[in-house]
């Protein structure tokens, strides 16, 4: 038994040492993409680093757009700029209400927007939001809110990722990170991402064969959606939720789309929050192949159409009036 205990202790000690060496080397050499359980995306991804860096300079704006990639690909902030409406697009890949809550908790006091427009990321409503958490934390200062966001679901993946992020911070301070720019995509100050891909990447056959599926909101996301509403209420900021446009093929393959939106609408209405579904707006005419990048993301042409309509809607709702719509 004694021999066994000694060997076990030896293996554990050796494993810890080897683990530290591997993680250290991979992080410093920038090989994290080869470590699926240590997803440190510092300076990578779709301009999350640039966006979060710019965020530090944002104060007292009219509208904050927040949510998933549907936001940073769909809402062109330049459309609002032309009308002298100050905005910032804080969309990040796969962002769910869980992540939105922590981002707002961290920055809302400083940004002080009059209105927040948050997207309902349909595919993320049943997730734990951990992928987005790691992406955000990788490109953000390691504050208490950010650490809480990751630590709430501590497992091998989040622990490895967090350790790797600490190592990279130790090696290169966040302000000195050089961002790897994705090909074909460009960061527009204000948070929007413009792509030069103007045709849908999916073929007609692929769109036709999209698998039918249903969507749901889990307890975690429901809780954090409520927390976002409460946070906005406490800060006296108007919150509007939107469902950005999807291709009709994608929408038609969501078997419970109408029921889901109706239920969400009822839930939000009780809290005095407006939900606008841009998939049921006749005036927004979008072509699957001309206006979309894939099954559910707009390309710059589609984004422009959508942004103008969104701007008009928000103007009609009185964006400068920060009194809650109850």
């Amino acid at each position, binding site marked *: 038994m004694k021999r066994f205990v000694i060997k076990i202790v030896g*293996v554990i000690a050796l494993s810890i040492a080897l683990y530290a060496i591997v993680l250290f080397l991979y992080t410093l050499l920038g090989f994290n993409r080869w470590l699926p359980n240590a997803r440190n995306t510092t300076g990578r991804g779709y301009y999350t680093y640039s966006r979060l860096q710019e965020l530090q300079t944002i104060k007292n704006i009219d509208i904050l757009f927040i949510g998933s990639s549907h936001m940073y690909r769909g809402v062109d902030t330049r459309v609002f700029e032309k009308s002298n409406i100050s905005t910032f697009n804080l969309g990040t890949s796969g962002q769910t209400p869980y992540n939105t809550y922590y981002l707002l908790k961290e920055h809302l006091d400083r940004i002080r927007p009059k209105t927040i427009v948050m997207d309902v990321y349909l595919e993320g409503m049943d997730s734990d939001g951990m992928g987005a958490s790691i992406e955000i934390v990788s490109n953000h200062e390691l504050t208490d809110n950010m650490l809480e966001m990751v630590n709430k679901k501590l497992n091998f993946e989040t622990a490895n990722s967090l350790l790797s992020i600490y190592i990279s911070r130790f090696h290169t301070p966040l302000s000195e990170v050089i961002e790897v720019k994705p090909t074909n995509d460009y960061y527009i100050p204000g948070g929007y991402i413009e792509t030069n891909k103007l045709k849908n990447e999916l073929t007609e056959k692929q769109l036709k064969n999209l698998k039918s599926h249903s969507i749901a909101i889990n307890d975690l996301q429901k809780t954090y959606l409520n927390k976002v509403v409460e946070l906005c209420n406490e800060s006296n900021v108007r919150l509007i939720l939107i469902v950005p446009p999807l291709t009709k093929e994608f929408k038609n393959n969501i078997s419970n789309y109408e029921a889901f939106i109706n239920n969400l609408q009822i839930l939000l209405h009780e809290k005095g929050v407006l939900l606008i579904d841009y998939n049921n707006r006749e005036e927004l005419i979008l072509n699957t192949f001309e206006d979309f990048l894939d099954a559910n993301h707009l390309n710059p042409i589609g984004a422009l159409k959508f942004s103008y309509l969104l701007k008009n809607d928000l103007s009609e709702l009185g964006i400068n009036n920060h009194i809650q719509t109850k």
Partner: protein
Amino acid sequence: MLFNSFEFLVFFPTVVGLYFLLPYRFRWLLLLIASYTFYMFWRVDYAIILVISTLIDYTCGRMMDRYSEEERARRKPWLWLSLVSNLGILFTFKYYNFFNGAASDLANLLGVSYAAPAFELLLPMGISFYTFQTMSYSIDVYYGRIKAEKHLGIFALFVTFFPQLVAGPIERAGNLLGQLKQKHDFDYDRVTSGLRLMAWGLFKKVVVADRLAIMVNQVYNNPTNYEGIPLIIATVFFAFQIYCDFSGYSDMAIGAARVMGFNLMENFRRPYFSKSIKEFWGRWHISLSTWFRDYLYIPLGGNRVVKWRWYYNIFIVFLVSGFWHGANWTFLVWGALHGFYQVFGEVTKRKRDNLASQIGLKKWGSLYSFIQIGSTFVLVCLAWVFFRANTIGDAWYITTNIFMGFTESLSTITSSSVAFKYYILLGKAKEVFVLALLFIAVLIIIDSIQERYRIKSLIVSYPSLLRLSLYSFLIITIILYGNFSNTEFIYFQF
């Protein structure tokens, strides 16, 4: 509870620690409580099925034992009671809705009205495994191969022994019951050997199988989006995924039992090195294959019958085996395909041998083996299409499109600026694809070594530091590369 969960990481060392600390007479009770706890982590109420199954088979066994070999006829009603109740449980939970649906479809086809209610029942985890294990016990008692177990607690432990409760190996009473009564002391070599096997099984499950699953699911959940190369890649990946998933579970089960001193039967013996389908079934899910051999094939007459009947016996066994895997037409076709392969293999064996001799292939031993292994693998993969596909329609689409669209696929690859780019067709990042290939290569290398040498002896012969480094390397690989979000084992559904 899953072997690849944090709960098990706490549960197992606790059980093992208590097991060796407790006096021998209490150990069966500890293992019984542990086994029920293990099962009830999934669903508490379904443990009642285990209790019912245990009580019926215990009673039937004891009643059969009251009569001598000469009075076998008086044993028969008890055997029937055991078989009917076990198969009844299995039918209710696993097959009722399938037959109900099939009857409804048939009625629609004939224009007859049919309306039987469908049950909204969750399939109890591992039901096919433990019902088959208890049925084999009853049959063995009936034929007098073993004596019925008198100790209800030990018998209950035989039914529920947690390492092999939910996904086998399907143990025989003759092997396991006796061991459950033996005293097992702490043995350094045995414990470390068990832990090594568990770590290797975990590696196969979370690093290889669950990484491959990402790409396999992508294609098989939406097969009509693909044709040609991606379908081939996903099918080959699935072949390795299911092997690593199931053999990984078996390794963990055998390893966990070994740590406590129990020897469970070998369940996999590097099946993809088989030179024929017949050999494949001697290496794949051995505990199930031998079960069907002993309790279905031989009672049907085995090969001691006229040829056509022999072929019929083979085909029926594989058809039933397919149905054992799941109440879906896809599994039936998978079983039927393997039955056909076996029969066709037997019918053409002599001709194929003659052909190989005539063209001189047999002189080239390695090449001949390579062709045999390769062709067996291709046939197995073709059958896996039906096993993995969600519907018969999907499976049909894949089999009819798997050799199409090569021009389109190649043009996608050649139009890209990336040098190594089959991953583009799967819509996944390069790293996901390359890592999958790397882990398959590691698996093949380790299996090749095991095919020739006893890897355990090799490792034990290494200097202590090198050995410990190897274990550490395995642990680190699991931590850094394991996919812990895709936790279910494929065979749990059976």
